[in-house]
């Protein structure tokens, strides 16, 4: 079966996030003083062939562990969206 998968890659808790900090410092200049804890990650979308949604999930989690993310600094949230 054919699955669309969305992978949300985010900086691990406790790891400084220079992109988020820079954006956080810029927001008050536009009047958004109420913002805080900005964290920037990335989203990867891909299509995968697998026997089931569970199989697609574990296939993509394996990709994340071995290639798509660096577990030292990043976490991945894998979401199988649709067939």
């Amino acid at each position, binding site marked *: 079966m054919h699955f669309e998968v969305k992978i949300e890659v985010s900086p691990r808790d406790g*790891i*400084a996030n*220079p*992109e988020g*900090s*820079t954006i956080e410092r810029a927001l008050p200049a536009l009047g958004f003083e109420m913002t805080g804890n900005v964290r920037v990650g990335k989203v990867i979308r891909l299509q995968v062939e697998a026997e089931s949604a569970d199989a697609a999930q574990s296939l993509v989690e394996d990709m994340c562990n071995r*290639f*798509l993310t*660096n577990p*030292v*600094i990043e976490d991945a949230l894998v979401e199988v969206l649709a067939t």
Partner: protein
Amino acid sequence: MSHRVGVVRFPGTNCEFDTIDAIRALGGDAEVLWHGDPSLKNVDAVVIPGGFAHGDYLRCGAIARFSPVMESVAAFALNGGPVLGICNGFQVLTEAGLLPGALQKNIGMKFLCSMQQIEVVSTGNVLGKGSTVGDCIKIPINHFEGNYVCPPEALAELEARQQIVFRYTDNPNGSTRDIAGICNESGNVVGMMPHPERATSLLLGSTDGTALIRSFLAA
């Protein structure tokens, strides 16, 4: 003595000739190793130089890890062969699991290109023979992702086993504990963000890189 050094070239590498020139100027021999060829051509030591291997897409060094040459470099390193990763080469070595931790974007999101003072923290590695712990040397940096991070337990191990090789005396990029370079447990694999090959002539502003490269050639 490492007479022959292989300098790995990936698509996007741009410091291979600087590195080869520096090695030759110091009496060594060096040649390019193409990333797609698994043969290390019987070299005595390997340098992974600076640049943007495979465009640094996804993460710096993430795709370079899968180049055919890297399996041979890993086997060479595990066998005790001297391996030096400079800048992007350091990033490649962490992604390949040959060195712990990771390098992320500089604090302040600035690309940094400057002469930097670093302190020699340990000498029990392939770069350390001509140096003394506590030496302060000038080596230039040239990077956007040089902010070294690693989990607290890995950091404790690095410190306990004297695997921190260089620290910045004035931390330019937010690197954990001012780390500018580290080595593996046996000291034959070193990764550093500063460029010793660019500190080998007074015309370049410093000759402090020569002791490091000479030590590497003697490893």
